[in-house]
């Protein structure tokens, strides 16, 4: 049985996702001791890199997803099943910073597919869970997905593709309007369809996905592979900001604000 990590990274006009992927790949090698394959395009791939990927897979990306700041190439995640060279794959967002070996334990207890169904925010504990709409499903998260190559998992990824192709219909059906395609919502809808609209606890990673949210900054301490950070938070009280902080170490987290990644990679200003 082969195990490895799959990262999708397509540069946008605003963010260098390839650079984020390479930064994270080194951390994955260090903390999880797993090989990393990147799925990217020829425009994102630099002419020269010191990092040795397990495999580099180039595809032609779908660039039809636009946000206010430009193109966001996040479609095509459904290809992970076919593209992964591993029997067991961890599919991670490049902005999910690996700081511990915790994800290795997922391989011990999942059946053939699992993802996060609950989240929390560092510095903003007990935040509400995200819903597709007021009366819709609670959102699942495509940030961390572990899967084996089984027929059921193949169906899940084919269903994600189907949802992507018919995203407007599903937005209408579930009464949400994100304006842009979101993998989290496509996964939520697809997994529910494949599971007959029943939720199976075994499909979920049994701890919260930790987000770094709004008004929060991350300051890295130590060298490139260290996992010590200071997290600062602007707590608005009576029209004034009270600056608060905590020290964290060896905890994985997901950066919602991609601008923070720059500070982590190159040092905070």
């Amino acid at each position: 049985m082969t195990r490895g990590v799959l990262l999708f990274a397509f540069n946008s006009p605003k963010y260098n996702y390839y650079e984020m992927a390479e930064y994270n790949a080194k951390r994955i090698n260090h903390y999880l001791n797993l090989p990393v394959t990147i799925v990217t395009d020829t425009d994102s791939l630099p002419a020269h890199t010191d990092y040795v990927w397990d495999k580099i897979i180039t595809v032609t990306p779908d660039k039809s997803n636009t946000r206010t700041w430009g193109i966001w190439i996040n479609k095509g995640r459904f290809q992970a099943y076919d593209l992964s060279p591993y029997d067991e794959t961890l599919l991670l967002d490049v902005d999910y910073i690996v700081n511990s070996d915790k994800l290795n334990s997922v391989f011990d207890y999942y059946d053939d597919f699992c993802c996060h169904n609950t989240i929390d925010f560092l510095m903003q504990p007990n935040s509400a869970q995200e819903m597709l709409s007021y009366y819709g499903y609670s959102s699942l998260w495509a940030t961390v997905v572990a899967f084996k190559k089984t027929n059921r998992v193949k169906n899940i990824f084919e269903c994600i593709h189907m949802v992507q192709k018919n995203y407007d219909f599903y937005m209408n059906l579930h009464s949400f309007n994100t304006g842009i395609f979101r993998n989290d919502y496509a996964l939520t809808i697809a997994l529910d369809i494949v599971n007959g609209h029943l939720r199976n606890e075994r499909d979920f990673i049994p701890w919260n996905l930790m987000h770094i949210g709004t008004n929060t900054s991350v300051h890295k301490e130590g060298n490139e592979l260290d996992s010590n950070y200071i997290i600062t938070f602007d707590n608005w009280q009576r029209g004034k900001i009270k600056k608060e902080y905590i020290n964290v170490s060896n905890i994985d987290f997901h950066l919602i604000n991609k601008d923070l990644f720059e500070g982590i990679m190159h040092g905070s200003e």
Partner: protein
Amino acid sequence: MDTKTLLAESKARFNHNSAKSYLKEKYSSKLLVAEQSGLWKADAQTISFLNSMDVDSIVLIDTFNNPVQVDREKLLTVLKDTYNTVMTDWYNEWKELESKR
């Protein structure tokens, strides 16, 4: 700018409640153990229950709500080891953070 200067200049205060929540998130998940085809939490309740029984084999409900037949002594040993390791780390990090002002 280094982080100490940054914290001093912004007059940032250490938030003990957020630190407590972060530690709970970090260490609670480390108490989870996959053993004998079930997923278990090495908490005081499960350890006490396993300790109080005097049978070799027992059926327990795991964290996925499935009944699983387990070797009691073997599971107890694993859960006790996990509990001691994780709780000691949790305590040590908490003491370190508690000293911050």
